[in-house]
């Protein structure tokens, strides 16, 4: 009766671990959210040019990342933070996280995206949160598309829409804000009550909404309409299992039905690498990086001179007049809106 677990195995494991993580000198640390993606060659170009190593610290979703940055603002763990969007921008500015950096490239960016006049947070990209629909379903059923938010409460759309919880999902929050822009602070809760009566399905995360509930995606779900991104149809074509000539889904881009998310980059206070951080911000706003953004993160570049891939031109509809809310108005009321919404929608 001898035991086969021996010290040898233990030692092997420890050595594997030790060998795996020799501490190495870090140079520039960029804190970002989990959805961040970029080409390796793009980053390598910056690294070679400046003889540094860029490390990306993936820190959860945009909200989690920001809160983590706030909780560690006295001993910052990164030099640059990228990915705070306009729904969280004012919280970041109120907490005074960034140093101001009026980059020389600012005049190349779409002027409408420059939401921080103090230039603490600079726009890098933007995208729209819109309702996506399953084209085949609407064709088969001979159903017309809803032309406004109000239409969604009509009986023919009963149970056909899945949305995300604004307390746990960033597209969910954007959609809530769009309804507030449409119906106002007094009108949005009654609207959501009507939506609830009409069988709107609420799930907590985009993955479940898109992949399990939505009928237009791989999960073959029950709802032919989902709150997703304007670029999702293009992603469906690019990441299809076999080549597609047409997107199986499209966005509803009527007036006030989409919400524009803008993502920002900022240099964290107390950085020890300010010069390098500024260079990196310039690099992010430059054409090379900007043109690499669309196919990695499925959002549009903020730099007006950056080219947009053909698949975006073919498959992405851009809303002419997305819903808009003032950043400070959001900052003052966001938590209250979310909590009120939850109290309305919770059983």
């Amino acid at each position, binding site marked *: 009766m001898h035991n086969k677990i021996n010290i040898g195995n233990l030692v092997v*494991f420890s050595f594997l671990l030790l060998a*795996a993580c020799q501490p190495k000198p870090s140079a520039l640390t960029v804190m970002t959210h989990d959805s961040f993606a970029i080409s390796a060659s793009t980053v390598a170009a910056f690294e070679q040019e400046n003889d540094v190593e860029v490390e990306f610290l993936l820190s959860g979703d945009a909200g989690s990342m920001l809160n983590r940055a706030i909780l560690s603002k006295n001993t910052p763990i990164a030099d640059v933070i990228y990915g705070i969007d306009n729904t969280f921008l004012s919280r970041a500015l109120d907490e005074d996280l960034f140093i101001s950096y009026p980059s020389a490239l600012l005049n190349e960016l779409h002027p409408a995206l420059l939401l921080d006049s103090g230039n603490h947070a600079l726009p890098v990209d933007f995208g729209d949160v819109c309702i996506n629909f399953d084209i085949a379903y609407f064709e*088969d059923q001979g159903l017309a598309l809803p032309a406004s938010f109000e239409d969604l409460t009509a009986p023919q759309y009963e149970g056909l829409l899945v949305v995300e919880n604004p307390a746990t999902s960033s597209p969910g929050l954007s959609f809530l804000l769009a309804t507030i822009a449409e119906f106002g602070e007094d009108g949005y809760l009654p609207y959501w009550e009507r939506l609830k009566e009409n069988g709107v399905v609420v799930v907590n995360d985009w993955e479940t909404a898109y*992949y399990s509930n939505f009928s237009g995606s791989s999960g*073959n779900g*029950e709802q032919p309409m989902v709150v*997703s991104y304007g670029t999702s149809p293009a992603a469906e074509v690019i*990441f299809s299992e076999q080549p597609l000539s047409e997107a199986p889904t499209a966005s509803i881009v009527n007036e006030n039905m989409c919400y524009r998310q803008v993502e920002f980059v900022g240099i964290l206070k107390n950085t020890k690498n300010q010069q390098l951080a500024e260079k990196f911000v310039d690099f992010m706003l430059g054409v090379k990086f900007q043109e690499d953004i669309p196919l990695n993160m499925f959002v549009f570049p903020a730099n007006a001179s950056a080219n947009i891939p053909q698949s975006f031109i073919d498959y992405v509809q851009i809303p002419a007049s997305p819903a808009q809310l003032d950043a400070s108005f959001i900052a003052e009321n966001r*938590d209250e809106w979310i909590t009120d919404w939850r109290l309305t929608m919770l059983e």
Partner: protein
Amino acid sequence: MIRSKSATYYLFIPVLFLLVFYIFPMAKIAGYVVEGFLPSTASQPIHWGLIQKATGFTLYQALLSSLITMLIGLPAAFVFGKYQFIGKPILRVLFTLPFILPTVVVVAGFNALLGPNGWVNVALMRIFHSPAPVINSYGSLGVIILAHVFYNISVVIRVVATARERFDPDVINAAALLGAKPHQIFLKIILPILWPHIFSAFLLVFLFDFTSFGVILMLGGASFTTLEVEIYIQTMQLLNLKMAGVLSLIQLAFTVLLTVLSGWMENKKNAPLSPNLQPMLRKPVSNGDKVFVFCINAILIGLLVFPVAALFLRSITAADLGQAGGMGLRFTLRYYASLFTNQHDNIFFVPPLAAVGNSFVFAGTSMLLAVTLGLLVAFSSTTGSKWSKGIQTFAMLPLGTSAVTLGLGFAAAFANNPALQAWSVFLIPIAHTLVALPFVIRIIQPALGSIPSHLHDAAMMLGVRPNAVWKYIDLPIIRKPLSSAAIYAFAISLGEFGATAFLTTPEFPTIPIAIFRSLNLPGSLNYGKALALSVILLLVCAAGFILIDWMQGEDWLPQI
């Protein structure tokens, strides 16, 4: 009880570990919460109604989930603990696999099977000529409970069956000889002796359901909230640390209460279990036995293996274009093939083999740490250290602590410290160890506690040194529970329980991280890749389980 003094020294390392890696991070977080209560930031409201709702629903669903898990798990445990049948070791591994699956993947499995256009629903719709899906349970309490049973039933099987296997048949034979009827033997002998093990299993399952996060978040929809989900929302989304602090305290208080209660119940009923090193399993002989064994296994296969099998099938099939409703499926290996190519030269591309390697190293390290620390704690308790009971309760706390709090605490205490950042990769197995340690203690301790003291006394009388007692008496007796403990420690780490979301190091992505990255973007290829990676995760896990079973001497050939 002679070794009591030296036994206290064994506790030194586990206590130090908990102080540094649990108390210190928690103190950091407590600091933030207190700051949140300062007048300058007092604008954040506390919604007592929400707290009440979350607390009530947490207890309700946890109690219901764990009772139903026990209801199905106990008969299954008796089948596994009493009978020998063909395929048993393989079935045991298969039944444990659900434990490690990330929730998002379980949703995919259930969806492929039971979703509105899942295979079961499509079949039922054809049979009943029903235009609408027959089964429709998303966002209901039922699906939360189903998922909890799916996840945790193996805990009951492993813990209780292992104890039942080592049951000395002489005791039962003697009772039968004296005229006891089968139900009397069951109620008066088997149940009391197995009670600590049953209770341990219940406690573990309850705590897991109590702090369940992904299942509630992903399957419950937005209409349910629990303490754990609420802590996440208040901390990570609303930055209302006051609220999060109150919720954490409530959660912690229940954990302490439960653990103390369980310690008290164990004190009352800890009947020695005569060790039986060669399990006296028998083949089901009578027709009744055969039907029982067959039915239990059929139910378990339906409940635990079918969703996993659906996941596998889904990973090798694609829907034909132009055909709605999930019909017209064809075979494809594109999902697997695409794992190996970095289509867009993405800087975070994860080569599948590297992810497998990282997962194995992290899980193996956590397992060794947790088993070592757990053995030290459990060992000290059998040798009568007066501190042991307290330390055991103490070690249970991480399981009842929100993964968000734990992760945030780690980030505040270690990861945010530039001097320690280079070593942050070590924090991942350490965080996993904190969660796995209660499991290890809960599984090993009842086994050690049930070793009859006359064995130790006899050894002492014969002048055997303590180390040798440990090596030749205790270790062989707890060999099997030890392997169960190791399996769960391994699985907990491999399944990436919440806390690590704060500690991911891009250099060492694991399989679950690769799964989440694939699901970040729309497209059937991304979805398929996530499913393919999940199958790989299952294979890695099965390999780990088999290895651990083999190391403790499981006989992989059916005993005929």
